[in-house]
């Protein structure tokens, strides 16, 4: 399968992948065989899965696709493909789409998803239905470590960031990146990973916990007013 494929869009609130005004939104066509579901489809059953469609592309946040579709002894899968456009906090969304498939997700649905997103200019990768998908699963423990090193005095934030930029060729260092993306958001993601896997590397770093609690307190203050 190659070329282009028509898609329609169903929305349920704001989308982190495609904010208002994003060019992808304007490429949709009503009644298409591929349906892109954007926004907070977070509760099971909050969307309608149409088996007749080639693919239902469901935007994910920190949750697994199985939360929406259900799981069945490792044989689950349908025409529903999860996806997220990687984005560091409120930075502009990247050019990466992570597709999420279950063990028995239809290959034709995954391929349709790839065609839709590649035609829109994105780099598409496929991963299994694991919390954090590829990037958050891999980089969040590193950000946690960098935040811990900062607390322990291993090096200054400047020197850690400089080391990663000069020594590893990173576009930005771990501290500047995680702070720019928001420590409260880092807490949200790592908390979801830690709840899922229970391994210490995912446990939110102290600075993220502080940011989360401050965020919560400030939100509470606003509600009281």
């Amino acid at each position, binding site marked *: 399968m190659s070329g282009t494929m028509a898609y329609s869009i169903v929305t349920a609130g704001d989308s982190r992948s495609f904010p208002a005004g994003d060019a992808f939104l304007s490429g949709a066509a009503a009644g298409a065989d591929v349906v892109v579901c954007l926004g907070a489809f977070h509760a099971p059953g909050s969307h309608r899965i149409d088996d007749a469609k080639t693919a239902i592309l469901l935007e994910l946040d920190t949750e697994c696709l199985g939360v929406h579709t259900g799981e069945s002894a490792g044989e689950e899968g349908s025409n529903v493909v999860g996806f997220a456009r990687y984005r560091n906090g409120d930075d502009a969304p990247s050019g990466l789409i992570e597709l999420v498939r279950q063990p028995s997700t239809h290959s034709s649905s995954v391929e349709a998803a790839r065609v839709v997103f590649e035609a829109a200019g994105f780099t598409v990768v496929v991963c*299994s239905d694991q919390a954090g998908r590829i*990037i958050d699963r891999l980089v969040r423990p590193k950000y946690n470590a960098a935040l811990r090193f900062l607390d322990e005095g291993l090096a200054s934030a400047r*020197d850690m960031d400089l080391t990663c930029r000069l020594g590893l060729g990173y576009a930005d260092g771990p501290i500047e990146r995680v702070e720019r993306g928001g420590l409260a958001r880092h807490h949200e993601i790592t908390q979801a990973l830690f709840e899922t896997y229970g391994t210490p590397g995912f446990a939110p770093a102290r600075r993220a916990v502080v940011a989360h609690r401050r965020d919560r307190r400030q939100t509470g203050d606003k509600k009281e007013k």
Partner: protein
Amino acid sequence: MSGIIRKVGVCGAGGTMGAGIAIVTARAGFETVCYDLAQPALDAAAKQTAGFFGKSVDRGKMSAGERDAVLARMRATTSLDDLADCDLVIEAVFEDLKTKQQLFAALDPLCAKHTIFASNTSTLSITEIASQCGRQDRVVGMHFCLPAQLMKLIEMSPGMNTSRETFDTAWSFAEAAGQTPVRTQDKPGFILNALLVPFNNDVIRAVEAGVATPADIDAAIKTGLGYRMGPCELLDLIGLDTQLRLCEAFYPVTLDVRSSAPPLLRRMVAAGHLGRKTGRGFYTYDGNAMFGG
């Protein structure tokens, strides 16, 4: 202590890292003594060094006269005695605590009192390396990055007994050599490897867990994070055996499970899938070309 570095010795100068460090020091105007145990290794390094500076001339980065002057500042030797009048000796020998301790212990009676010993270790403790040499206050960590002749970064670490003056002198030398020093505590892996080794293990575990293919992991990391090289490509470049050695150096010290060697890493090393050097790692290679994913 004079606080001024004029002459630099590089131990292990027949190796890739040592040869690169010697290029850095000689290029910056320091008299440089290149020491190694084996003359053939020094000869090979001298040939590579001449080739490197030859390319610099070809690319207009230096004149032929400047190249000749740099090469004239470099002298190779297999005798430790020739390091006696160096103000700074940088070791880039095999990454083994006893080897480094024995080298500094042998240099101590030969060198002047003011001579600073620097270790290029990437994993070992500067304090432990310094502990047997009789001049713990004049030992400092200076971890260059590969390829040293191109990379500006040096991780600088004082040991527990390193004097302030020693650290400051070594720092000034690093800047005078055109490098960018960063300060880090004397902890396993300093900054770079403390972040990189566990991250690479997480990548290997993700491959093993079937999260995604190495090619998709690399594509995600490069596209999403802007890294120049994907982690699987990097692991193939540095060698899976090197990653295993790093794990075995870190984990017993840190007990951080992310630093422990993933089972897949051990199997790949046992199978001889070491990366580019054996033609197969996460990818397969034919010469410098990379195939598959």
